[in-house]
């Protein structure tokens, strides 16, 4: 038994120390867990980058977005990789405050929406964006005498009592986005707005799955209104029985949307800053950006013709100016606690 122990210990150490070499022809792209590790067009595009430049790209999955950023903050200066993909505007200032990034904005960004670029604070480059919106079940509203609510204000109308499911902003990322949406859109009286929502029977779940696949009427629940993503309707079509359907089974209430913007940046402490910058440039190039919608469910920042399913079923709503990362970081804990007091 002792021999087995020794062998497995030696094996352990050998295994742990193997594969640590990081030369300049190799980059590690740190991403959140929903970034595809292999097989998709995004990965094929990265292989193309390798063909063009001779630089290998390894994808490192660092957990969900919050975990990825928390880790980067702790490892600031001695990063796990060279480039980070997908830090969003609710998390960005946490990272910049800890000097996680070596400032770099791709020259291509001059052609992007200036508002998105500005939120990056000249430290990171925007790579994609998407919205969190209240979705409604078309069939449910067709069968009832109600029209779907048209605005945030109508959600507190007793006509729509007991119809809405939202997520806890302390445990769910779309939940936090929806809270921020109410703060931006309602302003100082957002606490009153939430008191009204509670009085109107809002259902609070801990996770998106619980709301979308538990409470939502399309999943057999009793809530025809649910906080989800602006890209949920096209994916209901795309992944549904009839990918050529003319009407998506769900719709989006544009006046409730909140925009989330994702960025990519060079991690401070990388051995290969030049190659890292090259990779950022590639990530915002047409070759890579064109594959974003179908694989990451968000919209590209580069000006690209969208797939038909997005043109037909997705909306890119006019949203009010997003809160800056600094405002979000300063307010988040207080807002979530206030929110928790109101919703009990």
């Amino acid at each position: 038994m002792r021999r087995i122990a020794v062998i497995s210990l030696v094996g352990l150490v050998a295994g742990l120390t193997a594969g640590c070499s990081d030369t300049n022809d190799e980059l590690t792209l740190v991403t959140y867990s929903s970034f595809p590790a292999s097989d998709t067009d995004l990965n094929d595009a990265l292989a193309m980058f390798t063909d063009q430049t001779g630089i290998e790209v390894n994808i490192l999955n660092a957990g969900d977005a919050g975990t990825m950023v928390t880790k980067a903050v702790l490892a600031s200066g001695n990063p796990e990789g060279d480039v980070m993909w997908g830090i969003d505007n609710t998390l960005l200032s946490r990272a910049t405050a800890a000097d996680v990034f070596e400032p770099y904005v791709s020259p291509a960004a001059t052609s992007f929406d200036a508002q998105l670029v500005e939120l990056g604070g000249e430290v990171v480059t925007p790579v994609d964006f998407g919205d969190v919106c209240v979705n409604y079940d078309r069939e449910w509203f067709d069968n009832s005498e109600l029209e779907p609510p048209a605005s945030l204000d109508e959600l507190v109308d007793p006509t729509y009592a007991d119809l809405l499911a939202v997520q806890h902003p302390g445990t769910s990322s779309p939940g936090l986005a929806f809270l921020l949406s109410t703060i931006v859109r309602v302003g100082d009286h957002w606490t009153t707005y939430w008191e009204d929502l509670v009085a109107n029977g809002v259902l609070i779940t801990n996770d998106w799955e619980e709301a979308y696949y538990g409470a939502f009427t399309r999943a057999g629940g009793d809530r025809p209104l649910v906080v989800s993503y602006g890209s949920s309707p096209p994916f209901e079509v795309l992944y549904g029985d009839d990918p050529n359907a003319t009407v998506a089974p769900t719709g989006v209430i544009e006046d409730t949307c909140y925009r989330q913007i994702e960025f990519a940046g060079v991690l401070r402490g990388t051995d290969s800053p030049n190659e890292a910058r090259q990779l950022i440039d590639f990530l915002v190039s047409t070759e890579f950006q064109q594959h974003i919608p179908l694989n990451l469910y968000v919209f590209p920042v580069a000006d690209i013709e969208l797939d038909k399913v997005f043109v037909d079923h997705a909306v890119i709503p006019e949203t009010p100016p997003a809160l800056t990362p600094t405002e979000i970081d300063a307010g988040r804990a207080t807002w979530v606690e206030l929110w928790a007091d109101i919703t009990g």
Partner: protein
Amino acid sequence: MGRHHRLNHPPPWWNVAITVPPTALAIAFIVTPVAMLVGQAVSIDAITATLSDSRTWRVIWFTTFQALISTIATVAIGLVPGLVIARSHFRGRQFVLSLFAAVFVMPTVVMAAGVRALLPGDPAGLLPIVVAHTMFNLAIVIRGIAAAPVPVELEQAATVLGAHPRDVAQTITLPLLRPTLVGLTAVVFALCFTSFGVVRILGSTSSTTLEVEIWRETIILGRIDRGVVLAVIQLVMLAIGIGVWIVTRRRSDAFQSGSRQPISLRGRLVVAGSCLLVSAPIIALIQGSFRVNGSISTSGWRNLLSNSIRPGLRLGFDPVQAILVSLVTATFATAFALTLAVLIVAAVASSPTIGRVVDGVAMLPLGISAVTLGLGLLITFDVPPFDWRASSLMTPLGHALIATPFVVRPVVGALATMNRQQVDAAATLGARPIRSLADSIIPLVTVPLLSGAGLAVAISLGEFGATSMLSRSGGETLPIVIERLLTRTGGDFRARAYGLSLILASATMGIVIALETVANRKQR
């Protein structure tokens, strides 16, 4: 331990040698990472802020309260079926035992959905949390008791002499089973105390555990310092608990384990009842795997192993690869855990005093928050040649740390029944101390060790929390893939996830049955 003569004990170098590996591993992979994190992140301000926040105290109260209730419920429900299975042989015994292990690896989201389906209304808070904890941890109690030696002969003797069955239970069975039972209770309590997935889904703002609060502070609110303070509070509370348990623990008297008897009708009913209870979430899974968008469909099963959404559109991960990755990870994790467990058990058997300490240290992983450990490992192993942050062996190593207490517990329970005098007699008759020790413990620990290995496989196959905290490149484990399928909009992803959960449960059952079969052969 005065009654044992020093001469009959293994030499001191042996005691030291055997305790070094588990202690060193615990220091390297548990104590150092947590200490590093405390050193880097915690300030006096964070400590003051956390301790003066009334929320902290409410969370501590709820964490302890729900863990107590959950533990009492689990032990109360698991005791009788466990005893029946321990003393009976019947067809399907191994199947029943593996069923509990399969429930233990159920993805938390699925278990939560099952509990919701069982309870009317839209429950959140204490009741659903306790029900879910009980379902999960029944496996620990029932399998633990079933693997323990049973004083069948003593009981029969008492019965023949006219003792009432209740008196037999109170004066013979339970006292002799005490070390096993106390150990299992401690493990279940620690598991419920540090519960994450169940509470994150079924808890509410006011009913939450320290573990969930650590995650909320660290990951959601980005207050790493406050999160770490909470993690230290959790660790200290459990360390105190473990300390009290070790100090007050008594050895039971030695006895000869008897052979299993045919099962009675009443026994059959008890076993059937407990199986029915834990089958509820599995039945919910089967139903769910045949439902797509509210109607019955086999598309989830047809696409189960596919890595595509439709031709030309890929998922970005591969279920077949995930099954292989999970199997390889579980193999490594079980090998690590068994190695550790054997060393710990050897230490406990060689020297009761040192053994107690090592035994306590082995319980530590139960008290460490996965979030804290994940972040601690990140900042500890970050300098070459120890830059192991994305090493593919980190995941099995993490699983092994988590699984070790489960392997050690029942084995140490069995060891408590060891007849020390027999060891001493052998030594007196000229056997070398280490040899005589080995001769007397190996037959005693083989069966619980193999049963523990089954549980280690199950833990590794089903583990989600720690895995999701570790950075990784390359293949994902099956629970991670299931979670990713569950978080996608549209399509048959949910049915596929449920189908894969059933594959996970079946694989667990198969492996556990195989190991039990080997164990039973050994016993004969």
